[in-house]
């Protein structure tokens, strides 16, 4: 009978907290959006599933060995962990958790060894997170794959579109302002690092958002990644009203001149030019843009097709699976169910809206100062969200003028937006470190 009791006491139904229950529903909701509504399924299927796994009570899949040991509640182990962390002894779970969070690396190591000796091990999702995200490798490998899939031809044919990609990044910085404003107003409690990580949602680029928040605000990573991918999926709903409101029927009808032919050599040299500029001016953007340029050079050089194919297929797919599950591990109830998450979701959609608007406005500004006209609808593609935003530009263009194919023209600002948000990421990482370091 004791065994039945034990099994019941260790079962999820007995241990489940209301937070975990809610988060399992959230995970199911993300899966529904991904599978039925086709919301960025490549990421949201693993994220949603990982979120459910992270909230299975008693399974401790998303926590390190030492937290699993603490959840077990064994008095002897708790005492040893407290001592390893330099406390006199175990007094309260709250106190122990606080001590663990602020422990220097050596003390944390000792506590982890206590947990290991007591037979606990790291949860599966925690291991995935450590290897894939905490090390920074997964977003970088995905960025390399994205680089290998990116054709800079349209951008090179019309380099002015880089300005559209720059303008749309205002969404990022406006959101930073919004986040610190919320804190100043006492509504939320975001630090400057939090604000910067939240702002990057406006970059509309998943791996950049995950990379930045893993460095600046790991606790918010779950909410930031979910917001980034969800809003990227919502681009066809978010952008059109803003684009229509800011343009006249006449502007939307503008047909653009056919893009010039771009030579193979220009395409090979471009990633190197970008890399050199990064090396000279923005070392903190070097990991992201370096891997991006590397992927693109593998693609365009034409001499390493084996590697380029693998970067675009097996490698990016494998990394996506583990990246998604790892992000899911940050959907554990105790981290995700926080008023901050609501703030992040609210700020994120504002970021997208502002980025869309400033992209369109910059296109109109360029038209005001230049002879060759740009259809301002391609400005919104500057937020990145490749290739969704470019498709939205194309669709609205066709609505206004059935002969107006904007897709290729919009690919320029679209990939410029990727570069722009990686640059913004580098700037923010440097500045936040200088402020908090």
């Amino acid at each position, binding site marked *: 009978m004791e065994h039945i009791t034990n099994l019941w006491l260790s079962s999820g139904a007995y241990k489940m907290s209301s937070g975990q229950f809610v988060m399992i529903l959230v995970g199911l909701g993300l899966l529904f959006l991904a599978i039925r509504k086709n919301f960025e399924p490549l990421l949201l299927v693993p994220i949603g599933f990982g979120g459910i796994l992270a909230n299975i009570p008693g399974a401790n899949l998303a926590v390190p060995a030492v937290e699993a040991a603490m959840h077990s509640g064994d008095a002897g182990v708790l005492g040893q962990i407290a001592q390893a962390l330099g406390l006199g002894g175990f007094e309260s779970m709250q106190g122990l958790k606080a001590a663990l969070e602020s422990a220097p690396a050596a003390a944390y190591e000792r506590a982890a060894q206590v947990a290991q000796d007591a037979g606990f091990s790291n949860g599966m999702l925690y291991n995935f997170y450590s290897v894939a995200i905490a090390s920074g490798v997964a977003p970088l490998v995905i960025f390399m794959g994205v680089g290998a899939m990116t054709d800079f*031809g*349209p951008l*090179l*044919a019309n*380099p*002015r579109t*880089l*300005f559209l*990609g*720059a303008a749309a*990044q*205002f969404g*990022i*910085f*406006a959101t*930073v*302002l919004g*986040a*610190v*404003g919320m*804190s*100043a107003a006492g509504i939320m409690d975001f*630090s*400057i690092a939090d*604000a*910067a990580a939240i702002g990057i949602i406006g970059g509309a680029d998943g791996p950049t958002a995950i990379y930045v928040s893993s460095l600046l605000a790991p606790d918010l990573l779950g909410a930031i990644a979910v917001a980034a991918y969800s809003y990227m999926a919502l681009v066809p709903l978010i952008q059109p009203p803003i684009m229509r409101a800011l343009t006249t029927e006449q502007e939307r009808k503008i047909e653009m001149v*056919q*893009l*010039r*032919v*771009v*030579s*193979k*050599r*220009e*395409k090979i*040299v*471009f990633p190197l*030019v*970008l890399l050199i*500029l990064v090396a000279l*001016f*923005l070392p903190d953007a070097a990991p992201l843009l370096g891997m991006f340029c590397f992927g693109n050079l593998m693609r365009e050089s034409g001499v390493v097709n*084996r590697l380029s194919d693998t970067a675009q297929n097996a490698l990016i797919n494998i990394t996506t699976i583990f990246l998604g599950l790892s992000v899911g591990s940050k959907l554990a109830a105790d981290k995700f169910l926080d008023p901050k998450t609501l703030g992040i979701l609210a700020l994120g959609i504002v970021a997208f809206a502002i980025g869309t608007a400033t992209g369109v406005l910059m296109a109109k500004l360029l038209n005001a100062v230049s002879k060759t006209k740009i259809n301002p609808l391609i400005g919104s593609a500057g937020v990145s969200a490749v290739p969704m935003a470019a498709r939205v530009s194309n669709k609205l263009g066709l609505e206004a003028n059935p002969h107006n*194919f904007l*897709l*290729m*023209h919009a690919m320029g600002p679209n990939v*410029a937006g990727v*570069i*722009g948000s990686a*640059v*913004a990421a580098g*700037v*923010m990482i440097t*500045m*936040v470190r200088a*402020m908090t370091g």
Partner: protein
Amino acid sequence: MQESLLQQGLDITLYGMGIVFTFLLVLVICTTIMSRVVTRLFPEAEPVAASPVSTPASGAAGDLRLRKIIQAAIEQHRNRRR
């Protein structure tokens, strides 16, 4: 320290946006120069089109695509044998 936080946010916004623009401006300039240099000094015999208007593959295009697919499959197969 609330002002300080606001001030920090403002700093990030102003300098950040400035640097994004400056960097991309430099990139526009360098790219334009690079394109001219490459195009003038090393003109290519066989340029690669940026395929501006991408209509859905119609009859002939479909045939071409199919040929390319078969070629690609054969190439892929040969590569695997290597």
